[in-house]
Structures are given as structure tokens and as C-alpha cells.
């Protein structure tokens, strides 16, 4: 994809069916999530996922800025996905480009689909995602981090939403593409799942997939999301384990 007239395509899959980093087709990159890492934010989380480093913070529900966006019947969800200038090989011009604005929009819609926004009319729930180091799959890493940050902020929601990208490399459907696989692969399909309902709240796709491949990709993505979901819950448990050991002191 996007490799029109580009250099030679590297070998993405070896004879043994291993990927460039040694993973199998259905393996995730190493994922580490930490909740509650920022002091000022109402909720926060840090995600290291392969070579991605992403931080998310949640503020709110709070007053709406700009005011005219305020809605009388529900909270609005304003997500801002931003990439640091130094997060990619070639310096990215700071600020929100069109790609970031589109991603911010679809992530906002994904979260509004699971938050109980009717509980907080005339407010805004602000979700900030900062990509510090990027290696494909940053929107998914951002959603994974922001889900945990929203839970850390104590905002009621239907469920955490894990997210992952499924792709196609060397003609095979593969989970969680890294940069080279994304650049030279044949398709990329990021998705975010509500595990409780089995439904997708974010779904995008680019490339070529036949109908059977699409079915296989959705299936593999759901499986991947369920694995990520466990890591998300573990991060929250770890965060609250710290609090419960602190609690007796406060009580005494």
C-alpha cells in the first residue's frame, strides 16, 4: 500500500511462516500498560506496544470549550490524537494534520459509543492521546491507552475497548502489523471491540481483501482484542492494588 514506484519489498514472511520480528501470524507484539501515570489529569495511562509509546489523559466531565458545542442532553466526547514531531523517522510538522483530525473524529465516536454520556449533560469529556514514538498501530495503541485512562478517571462506561490492527502480508492475514509490514503489506484494518457485546465501535480498512480474507481478518482481530482486554484489566487491577494498600493508612 502506498508503495507506488517504491523500492524493493522486503521479505515479510520467511519459509517457516515467521514474520520479520520472529512472530507468527496470530501473535501480538509485547504490550505493557500502566494506569494513573499523570498527576494533573483525572485519569491517565501509558502504553508501550512493540515500538509504540503512547500516553493518554482524560479530563472531565467538565465545562465545554468552545461553549457552542455544548449539548443539553448529553456530554460530548472530544478526543485529540496527536503525534509528537519526533515520533517518526522524518520529523513531522507539529500540530493536527488531516490524518490526525480524521483519527481524532473516529476515536471520539468510538468512545461516545461506550460512555454513558446521557449522565453528564452540558459537559465535555476530553481525551488526549499523545503518540511519543510511532511504529504502526498508533491509533489502536491510543484507544487502548485512552480506555484505561477513562476507567482510571472513573467515568462510567459499558466496557473497556481494546483495539488492534489486522493486516495482510505476503498474501496472509496477520495480527498487529509493525511499521515495515504496514508499509509493504497489502492491507491494514484497524478495529476496536466492545468485548461485552462483541461489536465493533471503530473499523477502518485500506488495501485489498477478498471476502473470505475479510471474514478471517475480523475473526483474528476479535481474538487479538480479547487478549489486549486482559492486559487492560490487569493494568487497572495493578493500579487499584496500590490504592488498597494505601487505604488502611488513610482510614487509621
Amino acid at each position, binding site marked *: *500500500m*502506498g508503495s*507506488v*514506484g*517504491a523500492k524493493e519489498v522486503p521479505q515479510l514472511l520467511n519459509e517457516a511462516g515467521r514474520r520479520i520480528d520472529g512472530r507468527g501470524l496470530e501473535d501480538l507484539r509485547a504490550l505493557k500498560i500502566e494506569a494513573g501515570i499523570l498527576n494533573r489529569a483525572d485519569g491517565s495511562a501509558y502504553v508501550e506496544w512493540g515500538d509504540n509509546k503512547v500516553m493518554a489523559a482524560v479530563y472531565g466531565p467538565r465545562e465545554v470549550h468552545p461553549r457552542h458545542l455544548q449539548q*443539553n*442532553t448529553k456530554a460530548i466526547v472530544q478526543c485529540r490524537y496527536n503525534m509528537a514531531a519526533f515520533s517518526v523517522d522524518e520529523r513531522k510538522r507539529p500540530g493536527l494534520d*488531516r*490524518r490526525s*483530525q*480524521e483519527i*481524532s*473524529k*473516529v476515536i471520539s*465516536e468510538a468512545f*461516545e*459509543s461506550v460512555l454513558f454520556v446521557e449522565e453528564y449533560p452540558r459537559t465535555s469529556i476530553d481525551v488526549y492521546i499523545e503518540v511519543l514514538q510511532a511504529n504502526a498501530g498508533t491509533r489502536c495503541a491510543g484507544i487502548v491507552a485512552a480506555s484505561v485512562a477513562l476507567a482510571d478517571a472513573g467515568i462510567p462506561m459499558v466496557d473497556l475497548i481494546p483495539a488492534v490492527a489486522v493486516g495482510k502480508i505476503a498474501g496472509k492475514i496477520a495480527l498487529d502489523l509493525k511499521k515495515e509490514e504496514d508499509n509493504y503489506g497489502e492491507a491494514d*484494518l484497524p478495529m476496536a471491540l*466492545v468485548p461485552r*457485546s*462483541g*461489536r*465493533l*465501535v*471503530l*473499523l*477502518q*480498512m*485500506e*488495501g*485489498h*481483501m*477478498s*471476502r473470505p480474507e*475479510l*471474514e478471517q481478518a*475480523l*475473526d483474528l482481530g*476479535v481474538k487479538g482484542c480479547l487478549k489486549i482486554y486482559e492486559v487492560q484489566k490487569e493494568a487497572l487491577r495493578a493500579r487499584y492494588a496500590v490504592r488498597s494498600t494505601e487505604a488502611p493508612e488513610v482510614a487509621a
Partner: protein
Amino acid sequence: MSDEVTAEILTTHVLDLAKKGRRLDGRGVDEMRPVKIRTGFVASADGSAFVELGPTKVLAGIKLEPGTPFPDTPNAGVLTTNAELVPLSSPGFEPGPPRPEAIELSRVVDRAIRAAEAIDLTKLCVTPGEKAWVCYVDIHILDDGGNLIDAAMLAAMSALTHATLPGERFGLGEDKPLEVRHLPIETTFARLGDALVVDPVSEEESACQGRLTIATDEAGNVCAMQKGKVGAFSPQDVLQMADRAQVHGDRLRDQIRAL
């Protein structure tokens, strides 16, 4: 507040209708509005198409100019897609910098054209690394009757299919038709309760619990997808819509080819 109340009443009405398998304009769940396409609408463009999807009106114009290839793709021409929600098309659109909806529209159309490899960009290269054709696809939304994505995509592909590479104007050989390799078509669905309706009108878009756009090509591939709006779809929903998108896509491809 009264706007909110009317919106609420309309939403309830749209959802109630959907429960009975009916729609505001009397269409069936899988029935698209009639599509009218007029190519060559704008003489100053190198290709153009005026598309009506029911009441939705969209005009796409193609301009081809020599420019410089991107450094990372020295052997390829450049494709740029831009959609503008001009203020004359809806009371909700205001002049000013593009809003997220307009950016999403441009990018979703651009993604489908690119991912389907509709244009062989290497054929637009004149001198590697120095000179290549830049193909501008500019889409003007003139009347917003809902489902702008599908209308914009139809206009873009109809205009590209009937565009001319203006070699003579720039001293780059004879004029010749722009070569279009594949014909991707986007089909958009909205979830209204349990119903997945194709080609939503504005009121259905406001009431919907999730919108999904699927681009298909003539070989039966899915080339692009975009979920929009608040709401969710099960993987089974997605596959069902992919099948329906292929049928609609094939029918519209025939219509464009027959122009």
C-alpha cells in the same frame, strides 16, 4: 431547544419506521436512491461529473498539471483528492477551515481510489524524480441530501473515467484519455435499530447508531472501509454489508461504464 426536540421526534420516527422495515422516503432497506450521472459538465476541467443521488448533488472536477513527484516515489505521479462542503449545500455548513466531517469525506474517497489502485500512478511519471503529472480530484458538495460519501465517490470515479490527460496544453505530447485501471465504488450503510439500511438520507444519518462505508472493486475485493458516527456493528453485520456493497458496486460500475 426546539431544534433538539424536533430532532428527537424525527429520530424516534425514523427508528420506529425501521422496526417495521420502512423508511422515510418509502424505500426498501437495501434500495439505493436513483443515480444520475452527467460527465463533461465543466468544460474548463480535464474531466468532470455531476452526480445526483436522489436529492444529493455533487460535482467533481479533475485537473491534471505537471508537477514534481514526491521524493519517496520518484517514479509516480501524484493524486490529490479534496472534498469541500460548500456553504450553499446545507444550512449546517459554514465558511471557514474544513471541519472533521469534510476531512473525513475527502480522506475516505481518497483512500478508496488509492487502495483500489484505480489510477496507475507510474503511468503519470514524465521524468523520474523530476516531472510527473499531478491529478487533482476536487469534489464540490452542492446539495446535502445525505450519504455524501457515496455520491462523492461516484462523482470522482465518473470524472476520472472520462478525463483527458492534457498533453498538448503543456507541450507533453498529444492529449489522450486518462487510463483508469480499476473502478472502486463506495457503498454506505446506517444502522437503525436492527436494520442496516443502504444509502441513508440526512435524517437517517442523524438518527443512526453507526455508519459503515465499504469500497469494493470489480474483482470482488474490499478495498477500504470506514466506520463513522456513534454506534457499533458486529463482525456478522460487517460481512453482510460487504456482500451487499459488492452487489450495489457492480451495478453502479455498469452504470458508469455505460456512460
